[in-house]
């Protein structure tokens, strides 16, 4: 519950400290400005319609997946199966539609139902069978991969021309797919900020045990997050089908699951759950898209992009981790909840948190432990 209180107090905090979401967009604008100068020195315009369309088109596909991934990561889970769900749903869409315009609705419904079922299965395995989310979704991804490899050797199905419009139509410089992605992002933000389940996601991600004791049905929240995550991946699959005009199983080679996690984390959402949001994620997606576009314009070696992307992701998380430590140290000093603050930061990987926490009868003063002195010295 404390986490949801944190959320409502965020505006107050940002008056004295830049929140992570604001930081992401500051970084985005800084990158845009630097890129515009660099591209300008080569004699072209970063903000020409062609380049803008390129940036926004790149962002839409990853955007869908990353929005879904945000829900999962907020609940201190994660979803490694999204890349395979995208591939599977693109095939389902293309084979169900089979080139006929009157089967479009059927195809879309089939994709959404199947992706929701995959999310439901993920959620149930995590909550009922108590399997670590990493393992659950990795296993689910491998199962889908095995099915795809066995069943489909190459592209299959045919997407009718009407549905391909979803991939290519533009409103001015804004591609339709990006507009849809932004609408879903806004819906997601409203869901997290205004709905009860949205608040509960922050609570469960912050501390599942405390959330459970406060009367939240943590299992349902976790399942909802995974269903939403897979649904978003299903929408990305629809977009792939619309762009390619056919379904392709090889989409999973693009490692969208890792890209989406990178975008979410770049957007300031804590991998340990409970903090962050979709606005930041969109910022992260846009940063990656801008970098890709700029590298394309400047004809940087594509492999150098991978190197740089790896460095950026690590650097971003290191910066967030530093800020997080500062904040926690400050909270310790003024509120005296050293045990709680430290407990939330433990990265035991699993959602279970099976080992007993430090006994509350002996609160640890800030700066007494070896680990803590190092942190305290930062401020």
């Amino acid at each position, binding site marked *: 519950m404390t986490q949801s209180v944190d959320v409502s107090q965020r505006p107050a905090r940002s008056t004295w400290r830049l929140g992570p979401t604001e930081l992401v967009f500051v970084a985005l604008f800084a990158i845009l400005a630097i890129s515009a100068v660099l591209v300008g020195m080569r004699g072209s315009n970063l903000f020409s319609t062609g380049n803008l369309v390129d940036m926004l088109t790149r962002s839409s596909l990853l955007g869908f997946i990353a929005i879904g991934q945000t829900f999962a990561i907020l609940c201190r889970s*994660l979803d490694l199966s999204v890349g395979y769900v995208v591939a599977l749903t693109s095939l389902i869409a293309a084979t169900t539609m089979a080139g006929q315009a009157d089967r479009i609705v059927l195809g879309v419904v089939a994709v959404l139902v199947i992706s929701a079922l995959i999310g439901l299965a993920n959620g149930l*395995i995590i909550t009922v*069978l*108590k*399997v*670590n989310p*990493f*393992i*659950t979704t*990795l*296993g*689910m*991804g*491998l*199962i*889908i*991969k*095995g*099915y795809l*490899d*066995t069943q489909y050797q190459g592209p299959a199905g045919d997407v009718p021309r009407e549905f391909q419009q979803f991939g290519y139509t533009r409103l001015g410089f804004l591609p339709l797919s990006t507009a849809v992605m932004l609408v879903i992002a806004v819906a997601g933000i409203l869901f997290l900020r205004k709905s009860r389940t949205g608040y509960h996601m922050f609570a469960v991600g912050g501390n599942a045990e405390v959330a459970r004791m406060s009367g939240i049905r943590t299992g349902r929240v976790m399942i909802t997050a995974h269903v939403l995550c897979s649904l978003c991946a299903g929408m990305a699959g629809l977009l792939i089908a619309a762009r390619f005009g056919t379904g392709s199983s090889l989409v999973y080679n693009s490692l969208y699951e*890792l890209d989406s*996690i*990178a975008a979410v*984390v770049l957007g300031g959402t804590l*991998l*340990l759950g409970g903090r962050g949001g979709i606005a930041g994620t969109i910022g992260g997606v846009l940063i990656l898209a801008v970098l890709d576009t700029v590298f394309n314009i400047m004809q940087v*070696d594509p*492999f*150098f*992009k*991978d*190197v*740089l*992307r*790896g*460095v950026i*992701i*690590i650097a971003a*998380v*290191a910066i967030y*981790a*530093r800020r*997080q*430590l500062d904040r926690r140290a400050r909270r310790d000093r003024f509120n005296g909840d050293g045990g709680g603050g*430290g407990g939330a930061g*433990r*990265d*035991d*990987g*699993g959602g279970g948190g*099976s*080992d007993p926490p*430090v006994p509350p009868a002996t609160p640890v003063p800030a700066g007494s*432990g*070896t*680990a803590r002195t190092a942190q305290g010295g930062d401020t």
Partner: protein
Amino acid sequence: MTNVTLTRRGDQARTAAGRLFGGGSGTVFALLLLICVVISFVNVTFFEPPSLMAFAKTVAPLVLLAIGQYFVIVSGELDLSVGSLVGAQVVIAARLIDGEESRTIPVLLLMIAFGALVGLINGLITTLLKVQSLITTLGMMLVLFGAVRLWTGGAPTGALSEAFRQPGRGGIDLPVVRQLPWALVILVVFVVAAIALMRSSYGKTLIATGDNERAAAYSGARVWQVRTTAFVLSSVMATFAAVLIGGFAGVTAQVGQGLEFSAITAVVLGGVVLGGGRGTVIGAMGGALTLQALFTLFNQLALPSTIRPAAQGVIIIAAVAYAARERSRPVASTEPALSRDSESRSTT
């Protein structure tokens, strides 16, 4: 000071290790036995020494990777970079050796140094900069993947020397087994070394760190050093796996792909809990053997190789669900000896 405060935990670990040989690690080895029985029904020639030796050759790299991954996982972290590190090392070897026998040893030493450096960077970023290991090693995976291709211009160049390929494909000619592969010799050395390491005070500190980081720190363990060393060990093991894989399979652009997930599957199948503190290195090795035996069984049954990932997925979920069931099962809490017994069983 470290020794005094960790003695009790050390005793516990020692009794747990003792139970392990007494049949505690049951699950994974029972599964391995079951698979072997099924294989013997399908194709009894599999158990003739030469084909067993061939199996040892294929399984050795996975066991090495599983040992390395075990060190990291039991300390509470995760290493996703081993797959691309294997790929990078093979490509580096091919490019630097370029078919010249005399360069084999220097390049081997260089590879080990490079592996240790990668592990050191992973470990320091994770422990000192407080970046979650998932992100650190994911970033490292991207960096290695891109850097190696940037360096070679997309496709691997050069060639491995014959001496370099010996450990992976060669062996000693013997009467019964026809050929005792070097890979098996190397494997046995590392298995013994890993078991010895886990029985040393470092191994116990490693498990203690994964079990409860704070308690370990208060007991005098230098958590960051312990974890960083685990990452270095993982990367060095990946380097040796790369030598074996390069020798066995040669140089391709795809070498190493997906190996990190195979290694994690093997470790988890061996009953090691993601999040740290539970599980034995022998279990992890058993997991690797079981996974490879299962793939062999699929081959014997002439199943399409494309079904492997699906089977791997089902296994990994089932294994962890099974372990979670054991852990969450209510035990007689009034009987401390009994509950401790069942707990230690679930760890193996």
